[in-house]
């Protein structure tokens, strides 16, 4: 499992991964560094790869023990005179010869086999212990197609709900937080420090503690089962305000003064000067917001109780609530759910390194 992911990486990143400290030979620090980095790759990337690979397994191979890294499927062959395709087996005959045969049925410890080349020939009975299923790597794409067609328009509704909440909440978060940060970083007013402290102090209160009060407010506003009931309580985040404020402190005051002398209104200064210049910090806040809104479970669980307003995460959880757990579809859905986040990361990644480095928050 881990091996495969590592070899993939090694090919992809080529020379970068073979960089080393010593010019020619491998120094001890190189070995230690690489060992440590590989450990990190295994720990971080392993579970993700496991889920993705498992989502392509058939239900049967998911149940298999010991589990395999790659998704395998037993090969089968459609033969004349048989209704269903027959699974193929490698059979070790009594004389030691290995023959590929199709299994017709299994009776106790014995299996009835037929030669796929000659289906009309007599069936051979062999002990089941001497048979080995013929398997090949097979990506069970049907997990995904089944998921998307089975639940019909439902899954698209969940996707829409999740997307709507994530996009709208992130947009409002960015605007609200950057406005607060602008005020806290660039205006001198009585109580600005107290305001900042109050905002930061809310970090110390766990979200679960305010869950019930939040729900009560949402209920009072009549927003239960409404997507806005999930969006509005989350748009102001203390980390976002703090991060943006710290970044905006590094933007020189002279720029704002110059803009002020250039007849720019305060709103225009914010919109044309501050926002473009804090793009790296905004990207970081956007990532945090997208991540937490998309993955949010608790608040939607409390606020949204009708199936039509479910988010993907809620739908994912409800898969487990039924009598049978469809692990294959559950895994496919998990993979699908994680994909947009990966996309967002890839898109915003170049800002993040710059942003994290310059905000000094590690």
């Amino acid at each position: 499992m881990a091996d495969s992911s590592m070899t993939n990486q090694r090919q992809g990143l080529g020379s970068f991964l073979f960089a080393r400290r010593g010019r020619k030979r491998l120094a001890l620090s190189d070995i230690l560094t690489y060992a440590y980095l590989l450990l990190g790759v295994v720990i971080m990337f392993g579970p993700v790869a496991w889920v993705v690979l498992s989502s392509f397994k058939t239900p049967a191979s998911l149940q298999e023990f010991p589990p395999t890294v790659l998704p395998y499927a037993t090969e089968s062959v459609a033969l004349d005179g048989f209704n269903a395709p027959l699974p193929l087996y490698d059979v070790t005959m009594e004389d030691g010869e290995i023959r590929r045969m199709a299994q017709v049925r299994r009776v106790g410890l014995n299996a009835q086999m037929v030669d796929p080349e000659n289906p009309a020939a007599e069936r051979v009975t062999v002990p089941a212990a001497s048979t080995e299923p013929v398997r090949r790597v097979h990506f069970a794409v049907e997990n995904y197609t089944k998921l998307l067609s089975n639940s019909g328009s439902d899954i698209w509704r969940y996707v829409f709900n999740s997307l709507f909440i994530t996009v709208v909440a992130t947009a409002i978060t960015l605007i609200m937080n950057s406005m607060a940060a602008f005020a806290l970083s660039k205006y001198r007013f009585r109580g600005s420090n107290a305001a900042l402290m109050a905002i930061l102090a809310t970090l110390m209160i766990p979200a679960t503690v305010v869950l019930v009060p939040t729900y009560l407010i949402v209920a009072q506003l009549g927003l239960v089962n409404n997507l806005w009931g999930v969006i509005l309580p989350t748009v102001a985040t203390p980390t976002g305000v703090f991060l943006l404020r710290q970044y905006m402190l590094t933007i020189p005051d002279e720029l704002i003064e110059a803009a002020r002398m250039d007849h720019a209104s305060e709103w225009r200064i914010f919109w044309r000067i501050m926002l473009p210049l804090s793009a790296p910090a905004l990207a970081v806040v956007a990532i945090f917001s997208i991540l937490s809104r998309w993955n949010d479970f608790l608040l939607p669980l409390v606020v949204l109780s009708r199936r039509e307003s479910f988010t993907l995460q809620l739908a994912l959880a409800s898969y487990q609530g039924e009598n049978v757990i469809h692990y294959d579809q559950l895994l496919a859905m998990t993979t699908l759910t994680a994909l947009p986040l990966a996309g967002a990361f890839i898109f915003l990644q170049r800002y993040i390194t710059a942003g994290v480095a310059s905000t000094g928050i590690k």
Partner: protein
Amino acid sequence: MSNLVLRHLRKSFGSVDVIPGVDLDISDGEFVVFVGPSGCGKSTLLRLIAGLEDATSGDIQIDGKSVVDVPAADRGVAMVFQSYALYPHMTVRENLSFGLENIRMPKAEIEQRVSHAAKLLQIDKLLERRPKQLSGGQRQRVAIGRAITRDPKIFLFDEPLSNLDAELRVLMRVEITKLHERLGNTMIYVTHDQVEAMTMADKIVVLRGGVIEQVGAPLDLYNNPKNTFVAGFIGSPRMNFVEGAVRAEGGSGAFVSPDLPSLDLAGRSIPASIDQVTIGIRPEDFDVSTEPGNGWPATVEVLEQHGANSYLHCTLPGRRMLLIHQAGQSSARRGDILYVAPREGLFHLFDGQGLAIRPSPRAQVLR
């Protein structure tokens, strides 16, 4: 067209009086330089005029109208910042036109003003670049261009050359002077560099601790400093100061100081003896001879040969430092003892408070 008047202008931050009260008249078209050591309040004074700081009390009048309560943008002044404060995410063109767009000027006129300013400053080839892609001197031009497009009554410069290297600084100094001649606007320029002040100004305002020490034309300040501070600040290298007393001897006088031979103060009438006096002599105003005579014995410690000029760092008895300038290349060596005295009339006398004792020599003696 646009004169500027400051009346009892005061600024305090909390309990600290940065500017305890300034009165100043600047007439139209003047190039005025505020100069002083760092922390003397010159930048604060400029920001008060710009409207970036609110005055604690007092009045600012431009063209006879009080602007003390007018927002910065509407005062008709434009400022060039020390850091240039160019908008880094905008091209040069956008930087120049941002202020004009904000007042909803028609596009055609913006275009015309921008290209005019760009041609004037020779940055018309850089209009599509961003500030990051410009050199220091080019950024400086863009910053000045941004001020020009606004067509202000008064230009304010806040140490605009301090981020440039020495060679470029000399170039830009000339260019700003030329620009002033071409535009004819009133310009106020803040610097801590007295060379910039001397070379560019019509009028220098020397500030210390938020107080105006002296206002005047550059050579006027150089020749007739009001006090030891102005005398020491204007002129490079600095004026030499030696403390002592003046003894009157029948119309003329002599300067006496412990450990030093008495010095005849030729070229100036001394009516009465004064007990506490500081004599100030500019480095270039010494007569130097190798023969003992009327003069102080100065031991050469360090000799700086600049080629066209030589500077001799000497010590007088009593460990007092003395700097002597000699035109051309000096033949003196380290350890030589030179006998130095001020040229006739070319010295300044200051009383115990550091105020000049008038008349100063150059009022009477011309070179």
